[in-house]
C-alpha cells in the first residue's frame, strides 16, 4: 500500500540522530512489547508479512506520532482483536473474559532459542527463473492497496539484475492470507540518476530485493 511506512526518498524528516551508548530497550515495556509480538508470531497467530501489513495499516498520523515499539503495541492490539484472539473489551479490562482460540504452535521457554534466528522463507522453485544476472529489467508501476515490498521510489525504473537470491515466500500474497505463492527473488541495482534524476549523486547506486512479479524485461 502507498502508506507512510514507504519512506525512501521523502523530504522533511530532518537529521539522523545517533544516540551514544544506546540501550537495547529504552523502557521495560518496549522489551515486553517486542517479545509479545514475536511470541504471537512464533505461535503461528499470523505471518511476518501479515504483521508488517498490520503496521502499515496504522493511520499515517498515528504511525508518525508514536515510537517504533508504540506502533508495535497498537499493531498487536489491532491484530489480536481482528483475528479474534481477544476482544477489545478484554484488553480494556486487562483480563480475559472468554475462553481462548486455538493457536498453531505452543511458544514456551523451550521454543525461545529457535526464535532467536530468523525464519526460513526460501521455497522450492515452481518454475525456472525468468531473468539472469546482467539482464535489464523495469520495475512495474503498481499501486496495490495491500502489502507490497516494491517501494514507491523504485517503481517504473530500469535497473540491472545483479544476483538471484532463490525462490521465496511472496509477501504480497502472504500478507493477505492468500498463500505463500513462492517467487524468484533478485537483487536489482539502479543508478542514482535513474531513481532521482539529474541532480542525483553521480557516485550513487541503490539496490532493492525484487520479487519476479515486480519486474518486466526492459
Amino acid at each position, binding site marked *: 500500500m502507498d502508506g507512510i*511506512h*514507504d*519512506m*525512501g*526518498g*521523502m523530504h522533511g*524528516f*530532518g*537529521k*539522523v*540522530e*545517533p544516540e551514544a551508548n*544506546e540501550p*537495547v*530497550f529504552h523502557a521495560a515495556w518496549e*522489551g*515486553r512489547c*517486542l*517479545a*509479545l509480538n*514475536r*511470541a504471537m508470531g512464533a*505461535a503461528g497467530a499470523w505471518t511476518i508479512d501479515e504483521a*508488517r501489513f498490520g503496521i502499515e495499516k496504522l493511520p499515517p498520523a498515528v504511525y*508518525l506520532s508514536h*515510537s*517504533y*515499539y508504540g506502533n508495535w*503495541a497498537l499493531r498487536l*492490539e489491532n491484530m*489480536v482483536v481482528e483475528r479474534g*484472539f481477544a476482544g477489545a473489551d478484554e*484488553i480494556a479490562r486487562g*483480563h*480475559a473474559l472468554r475462553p*481462548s*482460540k486455538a493457536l498453531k504452535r505452543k*511458544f*514456551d*521457554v523451550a521454543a*525461545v532459542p529457535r526464535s*532467536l*534466528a*530468523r*525464519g*526460513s522463507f*526460501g521455497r522450492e522453485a515452481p518454475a525456472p527463473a525468468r531473468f539472469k544476472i546482467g539482464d535489464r529489467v523495469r520495475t512495474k508501476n503498481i499501486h496495490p492497496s495491500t502489502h507490497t515490498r516494491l*517501494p514507491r*521510489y*523504485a517503481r517504473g525504473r530500469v535497473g540491472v539484475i545483479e544476483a538471484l*537470491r*532463490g525462490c*521465496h*515466500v511472496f509477501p504480497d500474497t502472504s500478507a493477505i492470507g492468500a498463500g505463500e505463492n513462492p517467487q524468484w527473488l533478485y537483487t536489482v541495482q539502479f543508478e542514482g540518476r535513474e531513481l532521482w534524476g539529474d541532480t542525483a549523486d553521480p*557516485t*550513487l547506486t*541503490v*539496490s532493492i*530485493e*525484487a520479487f519476479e512479479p515486480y519486474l518486466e524485461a526492459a
Partner: protein
Amino acid sequence: MAQDHDHDDHDAHGSELSEMQLRVRALETVLAEKGYIDPAALDAMIEAFETKIGPHLGARVVAKAWTDPAFKQALIKDATQAVQTLGLNNRVGDHLIAVENTPTLHNMIVCTLCSCYPWEVLGLPPVWYKSAPYRSRAVNDPRGVLADFGLSLPAQTQIRVWDSTAETRFIVLPMRPAGTEGWSEEKLAGLVTRDSMIGTGLPKDPKAAA
C-alpha cells in the same frame, strides 16, 4: 517556538511512556490468561536480546574475515553458512549476505519500508536505523546521512545502498584499518563498530584503540 516544540515533544514522550506501559501490560495479562503466551518465555527472549545477541557477534565475523582469506571468501559466497562455522552463541537464519567495502566502494544498509536488519549478528537495530530521517534519506542522500554521523568519504568513492526489501539481510564487511599488521583476531574485533557493519561508520582508529 523552539522551546515550545521541545516542550511538546517532552510531553508526548512522557505520556506515551505511561500509556504504553499500561497498554502493553494489559495485553500481556490478557494473552497470558488465555494461554497464548508464557511470560517466562518473554523473559528469556528479552534477556537474550539484552545480554547475548549484539554487535560483538558481527565484530567476530569481520575480524575473522580480516585474518582468514578462506573464511572471507566463504563469507562473501554464503554468509549464513560461513558464520555458522564460527560457533557463535546464536544461530543465523537464511540469506545473510556480506558486502565488502573497498578503497573505491562504500556500502550502506537500510530498510526504507520497515526495520529489516541483520539482528542475529548485530543485535536489535538502534532507534536511528528505524527512524524516518534515516529511512527516507539513505537512498537519495547517503553522503548527507554520513555527514550526520561525522563521516566524510572521498568525492570519487562509489556509494552503494542496499535496501533490505525482502528476507535477505546484509552486513557490511568494512576495510581492515592500516597499522593493524600482526594483530590478533580478538584485538581486531575490538575495532569493529556496529555502525561500520551498517555502513554509517568506519572501524575505530587502531592508534586510538591501541
